[in-house]
């Protein structure tokens, strides 16, 4: 049984949260990971997520919002099922990061922070993701794709569209 009755999370995640808040010297330490894990499951940080997490940790909702809005990976609006994050920071830029981004835009027909009408993909231009030596690179959800070319991007998007892409969580 989850600590919170009527939890909005799956039993697994609820159980994980029950545990997570206990392992730190201070309950609040679980906040950032919890927000991220909640987002992974729900798709975004909804009002209900804010309410439940505030309750689980014993914080004001305002506090949760203050923190949540600081971190760029956390979003309060739904993204696509597969969030394509193209790095355009310097190492990637030098090796064609912007071409990859433009290619994705054209291919998916959406811009920065856009979501395709079918909700399968969303696109984001992101800062350095720590794959500089294998540039240009992008992440689809948490999965890395490196040494990209437009052709390779097409293949990757196709695999995801067919539901065969890796979905690291």
């Amino acid at each position, binding site marked *: 049984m989850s600590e919170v009755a009527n939890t909005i999370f799956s039993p697994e995640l609820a159980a994980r949260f029950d545990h997570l808040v206990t392992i730190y010297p201070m309950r609040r*330490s679980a906040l950032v990971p919890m927000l991220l894990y909640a987002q992974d499951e729900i798709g975004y940080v909804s009002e209900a997520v804010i309410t439940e997490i505030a309750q689980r940790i014993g914080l004001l909702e305002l506090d949760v919002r203050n923190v949540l809005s600081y971190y760029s990976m956390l979003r309060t609006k739904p993204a696509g099922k597969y969030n394509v994050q193209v790095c355009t920071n*310097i190492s990637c830029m030098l090796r064609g990061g912007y071409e990859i981004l433009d290619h994705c835009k054209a291919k998916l027909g959406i811009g920065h922070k856009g979501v395709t009408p079918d909700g399968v993909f969303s696109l984001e231009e992101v800062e350095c993701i720590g794959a500089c030596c294998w540039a240009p690179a992008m992440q689809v959800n948490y999965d890395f794709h490196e040494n990209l070319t437009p052709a390779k991007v097409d293949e990757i998007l196709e695999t995801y569209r067919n539901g065969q892409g890796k979905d690291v969580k």
Partner: protein
Amino acid sequence: MPTLVSHPDEVKVLSRRFGQGAADIDKYLELDGYKAVQKAIAQGPENMAAWIIDTMKASGLRGRGGAGFPTGLKWSFVPKQSDKPKYVLVNGDESEPGTCKDHVLFLHDPHAVIEGTMIAGLAIGSKLGFIYLRGEYRYLLKIVEKAVADAYAKGFLGKNIFGSGIDFDIITQTGAGAYEVGEESALMESLEGKRGVPRIKPPFPAVVGLYGGPTVINNAETIASAPHILLMGGEAYAKLGSERNGGTRLFGISGHVERPGIYELPMGYNLKKAIYEVAGGIKDGKKLKAVVPGGSSCPVLLPEEIDVGLDFDQMGKAGTMLGSGGIVVLDETVSIVEFAMRVISFYQHESCGWCIPCREGTDWIKKTLTRVYAGGGVKKDIDSVQYLAENMMGRTFCPLGDAAAMPTLGFVKKFRKEFEDYIEGHKAGTPVITVQDLVGAH
């Protein structure tokens, strides 16, 4: 999966287990895993801490996170007696553009980080360590989580580690997208569930850190070096490197080179050689235009300035920094105006917004350079950018402001003519691009 590269000039200390499946604990054990921590414990409860710290001091190891602070000395600052628990905090937030060395470390040798954390814990008398990974590194977090779980399963972590009578636990933690959280005190705030805004210093983390307790915070690579140092001895490690810069480090060479990748080179290794020999020279036979030597925060070097040793002191003398070891190579085709704009966009996006000069300075430099790049610049803009950057330098709350100002100053000073020509050339022209807009954190 990141490709591994290698070069004969490499000296493989940290990277010696790369590509051998050492993420598996049994493999790690086969490759001298968890021997260093046992060697430390074997010094006996009285001598252990002092022995570790002395060895680390002798190794000449300097922090791999960017600032290059001597690690042994840092550990020795932690008070022996403390009312509050002490902590070890491993900084795996790796977000400096051009840097991806911790990425391979977590991927190929996570146990080295765990063992290093234990050693730091023994050195300062801490019972709890945290390994904090940036949120984007989820797949690496899973690898590290598994490694930690395996270490618990073997009884290496938890109660009475290696029969020492000492308990040690490790908690893995994830961020959620914020470069500033790599700054040590901001990292602690983040780990305490707060906004990643840095803290006022002093007090320094060694005295008042995480949860108010004395805390050693080190970069993941720094920490992972510790087991190797204890095994080979401080002096032997020191000898691998250059004067006052012990050992080797993982250099990431990226950008316009033939063979980009992570190479482990001795400290003091020549930068020019690293680019032209180790990384195979400039891609497609183009000409070198500039080098950003240690992550995007470091002032740019011109081709004539790169005959310099890759260590903290020599790079400092060359007017730049060794930083995080991420060498970014720019060939002749690169527009410095665009490059400078992209760099400042990053700092603008990542500024935590706490202090006036960084929050507003990055924003206005970005706006100005964006307009210049789009073709709407006037010569006075170059002076404005320089004025803004100069007035950020040394006046911000944390070093991020400097990290934004330094490269900017480097670009406008060393490439002033290119800026002028660019402005001149685009005077009447239409904007060359529609500039991507990264305003706001969301």
